[in-house]
């Protein structure tokens, strides 16, 4: 039942936010986010990693379509639910300093999004997963399209069509799989795991799933919607997109692609792997050349997600564990970085590195927080990025030595663009744009501090989270290897 509560709470909070009017919206939304976090932490406390899917419930929903409203939490879901509920209040808090018009709608959309995301990560019915997967798009579309930058209309429409396009293929695959289940058909994900599909069918299903998830993450060459959308969206929406939504894609790979079509993986996995590795290098190189800070982080995010996908496609314990912990780490780092860029932008009205410089002279706090998040992102040992990146690279290396070597370049390239970002904005002579730059306010610190704590927690003691996911991941791998 806790799962149902987790899905419904943000919706309820969103509705209350909407009703409470523009003046109170912020506080109510934050409260709603915090309550959800509280419930998630309670679930975590009671959670037994070895026991498989827990807190489940199931209602028949559309009997003839074989759809039931069924959800539950296993180790993999738990990590992502924690990530979602942890980040959402921070995203809400980070929006506090802006005065958004119609703020009640704005904040309730964030909460609706949270609910859909938790639904995606906990659904145990394939069609329910699909519903949430699609439904998550609508709030974020409106967030980006109503409160976004100048080109928002074109960009968000492209984003919407692109991602729906991918997921519809997944729907076809799901419907097909549904009719392959024996007896009275079932759309439970575990029922799909039992299917014996011919190699050719596995190939088709592989691509249907791959395209859906690759567009969402995004992987090379399906990424073209991403930088524009990230840049044009208001920062809270960008945070939702990069911090949580792209994890839907990686989660989908782990939950659907690997276990359902293992033979398809054998045939086409190498190709997917190569695409992922191309994405890593390509994203990094473009990131190096960016001057707009938001775009830079967008491309770095694109590079990082490539590495996660590569880990998943290696279908090894290290790869999957690495991908999961990296999802956590990436979510935390990227949200922190976008927030800092938003702070810089709201004070200087520019995001261009060429126009910035010397911020650190007046901002000891900002510089330190920024640096820690950067180093986390660059994967310095003892920070959160290191654990994931290490596991991921070792898994890719085991899969194929050459690919591993190429993917390893990400560490060097990552340092190049990240340090360049820091150097150009924080050091050097003070530009005219940064005159009178104020250091962090208390509420800004309230957003960054939890993130910094998590950077070190995951970096120093990752087993808190690795232990959580390990039983679920090994179980999944057993399925794949059978």
């Amino acid at each position, binding site marked *: 039942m806790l799962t149902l509560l987790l899905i419904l709470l943000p919706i309820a909070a969103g509705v209350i936010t909407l009703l409470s009017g523009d003046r109170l919206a912020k506080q109510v939304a934050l409260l709603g986010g915090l309550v959800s976090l509280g419930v998630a932490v309670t679930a975590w406390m009671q959670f037994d990693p070895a026991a498989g899917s827990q807190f489940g419930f199931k209602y028949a929903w*559309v009997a*003839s*379509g074989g759809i039931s409203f069924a959800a539950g939490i296993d180790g993999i879901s738990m990590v992502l639910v924690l990530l979602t509920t942890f980040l959402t209040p921070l995203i809400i808090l980070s929006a506090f300093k802006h005065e958004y018009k119609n703020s009640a709608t704005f904040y309730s959309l964030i909460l609706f999004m949270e609910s859909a995301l938790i639904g995606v990560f906990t659904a145990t019915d394939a069609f329910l997963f699909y519903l949430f997967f699609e439904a998550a798009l*609508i709030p974020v579309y409106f967030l980006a399209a109503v409160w976004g930058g100048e080109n*928002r*209309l074109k960009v968000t429409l492209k984003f919407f069509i692109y991602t729906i396009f991918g997921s519809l293929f997944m729907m*076809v695959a799901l*419907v*097909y799989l549904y009719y392959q289940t024996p007896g009275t058909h079932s759309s439970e994900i575990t029922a799909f795991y039992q299917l014996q599909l011919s190699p050719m069918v596995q190939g088709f299903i592989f691509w249907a799933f791959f395209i859906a998830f690759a567009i969402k993450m995004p992987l090379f060459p399906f990424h073209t919607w991403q930088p524009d959308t990230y840049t044009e969206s208001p920062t809270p929406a960008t945070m939702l997109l990069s911090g949580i939504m792209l994890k839907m894609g990686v989660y989908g790979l782990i939950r659907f692609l690997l276990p359902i079509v293992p033979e398809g993986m054998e045939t086409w996995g190498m190709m997917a792997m190569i695409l992922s590795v191309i994405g890593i290098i390509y994203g990094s190189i473009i990131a190096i050349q960016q001057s707009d800070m938001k775009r830079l982080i967008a491309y770095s995010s694109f590079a990082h997600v490539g590495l996660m996908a590569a880990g998943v496609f290696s279908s090894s314990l290290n790869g999957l564990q690495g991908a999961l912990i990296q999802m956590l780490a990436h979510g935390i780092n990227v949200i922190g970085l976008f927030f800092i860029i938003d702070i810089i932008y709201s004070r200087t009205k520019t995001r261009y590195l060429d126009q910035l410089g010397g911020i650190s002279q007046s901002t000891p706090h900002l510089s330190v927080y920024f640096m820690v998040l950067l180093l986390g992102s660059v994967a310095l040992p003892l920070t959160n990025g290191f654990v994931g990146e290490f596991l991921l690279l070792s898994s890719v290396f085991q899969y194929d030595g050459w690919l591993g070597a190429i993917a390893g370049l990400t560490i060097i390239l990552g340092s190049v663009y990240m340090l360049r970002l820091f150097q150009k904005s924080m050091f050097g002579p003070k530009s005219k744009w940064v005159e009178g730059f104020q250091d962090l306010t208390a509420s800004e610190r309230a957003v960054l501090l939890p993130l910094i704590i998590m950077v070190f927690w995951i970096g120093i003691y990752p087993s808190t989270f690795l232990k959580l996911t390990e039983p679920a991941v090994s179980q999944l791998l057993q399925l794949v290897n059978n």
Partner: protein
Amino acid sequence: MYPIILLSFLGVVTLFLGFSKSKNILLPATLLFLIIALASNFIEWNKGPLLYFYDMLRVDNVTLAFNGIILLSAFMIVAISGGFQDNADSEPAEYYGLMLFSLVGAIMMVGFEHLIMLFIGVEILSVAMYILTGSNKRNLRSNEAALKYFLMGAFATGFMLFGMTLLYGATGSFKLAQIQGFASNIPAGTQSYILYAGLLLLLIGMLFKVSAAPFHFWTPDVYEGAPTIFTTFMSTVVKTAGFAALFRLLSSSFSNIYGFWWIVIAAIAVLTLLVGNIGATSQNSFKRMLAYSGISHAGYLLIALTALTKPSQNAIIFYSLAYSLSTISAFGVLMLVSKEKTIEGQPNERYEAFNGLAKQNPLLAFVLAVSMLSLAGIPLTAGFWGKFFIFTSAAERGIIWITVIAVLMSTVGIYYYFRVIISSYLKEGDLIKIRVAPFYQVILVLATFLTILFGLAPGIFEGFM
């Protein structure tokens, strides 16, 4: 059965009401008549298959469900018609009378057991539509549309009659059951070409009525030219009746020669999807876009016909309901908005007319947005489940490729449906606050509410079936 008798009688009563001095009584009276018809429709619910008129008309739960959708749509459309009081030339009694008569035709199409009934039903419905299309007498566009519709419709009727004649020649009967008997007893290795030719010609006639490509050429012009209220009627009632009839025809008489006709319907479905969706992208007029979108929805419904599985029937019913609700909301908002703005004395039906709608009229913008999301098939609206059920019915038959094409085309759909949402929510405009009559508002809210309700819990509907 009851609605046929009642509506024929009440249609005449409506005409007589037209003689009274006060025209204000017509709208409430017609609404009342429709409620009576709707209620009487469900008297026979669960009474099992009943046959009337020398076994020429059939009543069972499926036909009652289709009738229910048709009557509900008609009720909602009449409710937002506003009594035709703003136009001095209008003849409300005749319009309402014709609408009631046309419903008789629609109900005959839904429940026919005999091809003559189908023919009479189609003609009653069509003739009423020809007249209503041209009802805006002083508008050239309306006149042209009526003439075009009439000429093309007459042609289609010719095909249909010829098809029926051939079927009679082949099978010796107009009764569906006997045609089925003949079609299922064709000796192996032989072909009955007369039967096949008859079926194809009959299909052409019917496909014309539901505006499937390549018989769709009249649709955009007629939809655009007809007064919007009748366009709404055409695109919901006529389409639902047409698909109910097609489904009955194919499922009860020709299911045994599925192998012969399925590929024909499949090809037409694909063509219709392509024409409808691609045609809609290049429109600047919202009304024309809805016409093309109507064509594309005929394409989705044809997929359910292609599959012809048990779920197909429910899929068609659900889809028709979802589509009718959304279409009525969309046209309903269009009528309000286009009246506010005019180009050269005509209502402005372009996308730009919706600019800034959300700011002054949040309710209208929301109704419009939900209807567009539903037509586009976005989850948590009824339209999504409509598409979903159709895709599953095709998948059950194992026709995956057609679903893939439909999926591609649905993505195209998002482009043009979202243009309206973008106009109303994201663009600046100078629309003032539009006054919406309370009853009008109730209908729009009801349609939106049902769209969302069926989107959240399509199971409600299933329990009902």
